[in-house]
């Protein structure tokens, strides 16, 4: 171990490295816990009432994992102007819709950060987000506006298409760990304490978006993060005209979204907000696309 080099590195990036190591150790502990719970999971999988037990075990994992990661830095928030939003990109059309909605409506905010969560295997979504952020930088700098900072973090999917159900608990645990990491890691670009946790989490499905909202809800209910943060928005796809998607139904029945938006009048109900054609709203973007 070259201690001199370590000192130099530490001097350069300060406590960031220490935090990373700390998180690394905690992740290791969680992995252990996860594997323990996994054996229980596999056991219950062979019995009836699987879904109830699985959900219970999932919540325990989130709780234990979240507690271990977060206990060191509690939920202290200083009141300063911040704007930190986490956007979860499912895949293909979902990502395209998300970017479309953001690109139309986005405004310049004081001290703002955008985090994009993208699947590990989803290179197309990654490229789309990057292309959007480049366009945004060009557009906002033309108007002398602050476009804030952004980062893109990757998550593993809970279940891939054609994956065996036997291995799904494993991948679900890995996916949950990624989700906790994405929700709880402060943006490296900003060292403002209030930007520790996203103020708002937005998803428009599919699958993994549900897990994000579930984890965010558990973290908030357990007071691991301040209840004023990680407020959740679910936007049902514009393509859903007559019925909710499975993800939408799950999120609505578990009341996981603070704001549940549908884009078709036929889907409007007392628990959700109708906002038609969010993809094309506002009609005139506040700042023109081509300056």
């Amino acid at each position, binding site marked *: 171990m070259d201690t001199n080099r370590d000192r130099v590195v530490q001097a350069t990036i300060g406590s960031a490295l220490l935090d990373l190591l700390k998180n690394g150790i905690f992740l290791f502990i969680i992995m252990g816990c996860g594997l323990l719970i996994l054996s229980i999971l596999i056991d219950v999988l062979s019995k009836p009432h699987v879904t109830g037990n699985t959900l219970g075990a999932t919540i325990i994992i989130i709780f234990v994992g979240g507690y271990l990661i977060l206990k060191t830095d509690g939920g202290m928030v200083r009141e300063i102007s911040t704007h930190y939003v986490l956007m979860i990109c499912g895949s*293909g059309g979902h990502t395209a819709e998300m970017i479309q909605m*953001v690109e139309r409506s986005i405004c310049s905010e004081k001290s703002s950060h955008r985090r994009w969560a993208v699947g590990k295997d989803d290179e197309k979504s990654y490229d789309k987000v990057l292309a959007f952020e480049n366009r945004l930088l060009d557009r906002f700098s033309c108007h002398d506006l602050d476009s804030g900072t952004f980062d893109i973090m990757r998550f593993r999917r809970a279940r891939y298409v054609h994956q065996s159900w036997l291995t799904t608990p494993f991948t679900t645990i890995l996916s949950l760990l990624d989700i906790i990491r994405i929700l709880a890691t402060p943006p490296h670009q900003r060292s403002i304490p209030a930007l520790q946790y996203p103020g708002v989490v937005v998803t428009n499905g599919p699958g993994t978006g549900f897990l994000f909202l579930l984890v965010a809800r558990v973290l908030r209910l357990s007071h691991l993060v301040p209840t004023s943060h990680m407020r959740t928005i679910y936007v049902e796809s*514009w*393509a859903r*005209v*007559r019925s909710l998607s499975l993800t939408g139904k799950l999120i609505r029945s578990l009341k996981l979204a603070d704001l549940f938006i549908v884009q078709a009048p036929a889907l409007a109900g007392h628990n959700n907000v109708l906002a038609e054609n969010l993809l*094309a709203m506002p009609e005139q973007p506040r700042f023109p696309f081509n300056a």
Partner: protein
Amino acid sequence: MSEANLDSTHNRLTRTAFVTIGATAGFRSLLQEVVTPKFLTTLKSLDFTDLVVQCGPDLEYFETIRPDHSQKSYGVKITSFSYAPDLKKYFAQASRGNDEDGGRDCGVIISHAGSGSIIGALEFDSKLVTVPNPELMDNHQLEIAEDMESKGFLVHGTLGSVAEAVEKIDTLTLRKWPPGPSPGSSYQKGGLWEAINELMPQSS
């Protein structure tokens, strides 16, 4: 022929039909249909000069079924490619030209009914025929195609009669996208960002 050559034929009025099937799933039945003699003769009779096909994962398949020389393609120039991160230039090529590129007639876009493709195409002043992929039964492509046709923004085409849909749209005047704000609907002034700001923890 991997990338469509957009700079050709500047000396005559061009008219392009652009077919896009998205990036994720293949849509062979639509690719088959747009190279049938019936479809190509319809294009020719409507004075189309170019057919540009985005094939997604089925590019190799398309290369095997496309007519190999101009006699068989009825004088319509066919170009194909797999996928491009930004389809805007292709949408533009198939939409109404402005004064600067006068050598272009308003073409037609034939797309699968994925929401990203529909929205992408509607951003241009163009005529859009949307063909739902019947193999994606849980994808609700049919719903959105029917809904958008009933609102007058596009024409819903079905496999087997895409040529008829192109003939139909040629004579139609479609509603302009985007629609204005809907009464009784939320966030029409500020869009998704307005919703985000509503929930964002307030600073003092």
